[in-house]
């Protein structure tokens, strides 16, 4: 471009770059506010008295209270706020039991299966892999309706093992695809070298493959647990009051008579706390997990 380098273009270029930087900064600020504000607001709401929650205009300055947390954890309520209290500690424990059980089960079945899908050639291999993948995309209602009917008939309704089985539909396909992508990263030469050194098949698996893929397995365990923790649809219809996980527990604060905003806010924060903490450990792998290993 043969523009003469006079004063005018240089000044306009400087104006342009100032404009550019301020626009970018503005966009970044908007992005931060957009992402963080809901967390900030739910935290404030969880520290408010009932009257402060519904105050108009909304209060930024108020006398904070831990009543809502006391309410959801030990059931201590104050005055007119008392109502049917959800058993939140139980819900939290339920989430851990069901998600943990589902992850454990899907690992026992998923480790050998994902290894086979990563390493061996056999008939229907790709078809099987895609059958598992299709569970990631299938609408849950297609499983929920028949499972509901079956569970009602067989007495699995409102039981831990029933729910753990339902959570498999989330955990197992994820485990298989994620682990497969990790196993595929281990070079086959490692295995062959171990075999030449006289390792049996079992020895290769336990002494070479598993230790090498331990980080991948840890990531898959954590992410699988988190996906199960997020599940809402299956427990909504398949669990009862004794087996509700936190996701279903949190909406129990909304009833026909009233909405316990403060307690709901406290419960929501407690429900996502494990997610926020666990995310820190698997930061780099979250997108990989969400795409079932499609993106490294």
């Amino acid at each position, binding site marked *: 471009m043969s523009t003469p380098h006079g004063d005018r273009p240089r000044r306009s270029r400087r104006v342009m770059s100032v404009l550019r930087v301020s626009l970018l900064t503005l966009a970044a600020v908007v992005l931060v506010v957009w992402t963080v504000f*809901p967390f900030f607001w739910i935290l404030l709401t969880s520290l408010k008295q009932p009257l402060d929650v519904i105050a108009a205009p909304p209060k930024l300055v108020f006398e904070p209270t831990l009543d809502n947390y006391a309410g959801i954890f030990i059931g201590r309520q104050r005055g007119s706020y008392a109502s049917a209290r959800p058993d939140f500690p139980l819900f939290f424990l339920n989430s851990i039991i069901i998600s943990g059980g589902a992850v454990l089960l899907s690992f026992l079945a998923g480790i050998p299966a994902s290894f086979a899908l990563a390493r*061996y050639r056999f008939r229907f291999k790709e078809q099987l892999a895609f059958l598992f993948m299709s569970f990631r995309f299938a609408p849950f209602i297609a499983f929920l*309706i028949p499972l509901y009917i079956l569970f009602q008939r067989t007495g699995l309704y409102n039981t831990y093992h029933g729910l753990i089985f339902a959570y498999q539909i989330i955990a197992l396909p994820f485990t298989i695809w994620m682990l497969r992508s990790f196993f595929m990263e281990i070079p086959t030469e490692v295995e062959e070298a171990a075999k030449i050194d006289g390792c049996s098949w079992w020895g290769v698996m336990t002494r070479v493959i598993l230790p090498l893929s331990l980080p991948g397995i840890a990531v898959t365990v954590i992410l699988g647990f988190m996906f199960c923790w997020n599940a809402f649809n299956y427990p909504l219809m398949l669990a009862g009051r004794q087996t509700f996980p936190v996701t279903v527990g949190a909406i129990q604060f909304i009833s026909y008579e009233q909405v316990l905003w403060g307690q709901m806010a406290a419960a929501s924060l407690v429900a996502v706390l494990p997610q926020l903490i666990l995310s820190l450990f698997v930061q780099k792998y979250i997108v990989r997990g969400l795409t079932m290993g499609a*993106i490294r």
Partner: protein
Amino acid sequence: MLPYLLMLPALLLLVGMIYPFCLGVYYSLTSYFLQYPHLFRFIGLGNYLKMPGDPLFVYSVQFTLAYTAVAVLVQVSLGIGVALLLHGRIIGRGVLRAMMLMPLMMPPVITALMWKVMMASTKAGILNHLLGWVGLGPVNWLGSVNAAMVSVLIIDTWGNLPFVSLILLGGLQSLPYEPYEAAVVDGASGWDVLRYITLPLLKPFIILATTFRIMDSLRIFDVIYATTVGGPADATMNLHMRAFWHAFQWYSMGMGMAYAMVLLVLVFIASYVLMRYWRRAAAQAEL
């Protein structure tokens, strides 16, 4: 033999998952009402034949498709913008990226509840208060037909924009340098670089993000359930929600399952088309 043996436990679980599904397909061909077992009859395609004449069905299909189109368009185009922003030279880039992870692993129900608090329809709602600052009247976020659809879209976007952004950011970081060097030599403008280099190179990533978003938007449920339960006046009643409604509000299990099958077919058509498209784009980009 060995691979089949290794697959065995997973295959057993797979059978356990496919069996209820097949049972459900069978139910979709029956008139199964939970409270009236004596009405149970095999009626062939009866449930499916009733659908086209049912305005509720027609609306739920329209809403499902329209919502998916709008949501994916909004989220992917905003996602491209956010990815470019995070890829550019900007202060606190690391913090911004880490921050984007926060909504990513939230349970969608909890996301919806968080926004529900902010979307209170009275002047006590913080969003209405903020709108008041710029002179806009209180919006009945989840209580009026048009606003409710937008509200669901906002909540869904908050939860899933980071997913799109981070996939595309990963894509941007993997792009080769050479085309950009050539563009600088040729004196291309920033817009030209974006239009003729970045976006074409990013195509496989855009398609992948779009695929995941289309699939998840077609069957969005948690957010709608926690905010509007399909209302007001059935405005946000998509196929998934309507299937749930048939089964667990009207206990019409047969019809609910038939709706589920329609949604399933829709999802599979979409996945088939998109997967082919993605493979072609990925092959072209030698991914």
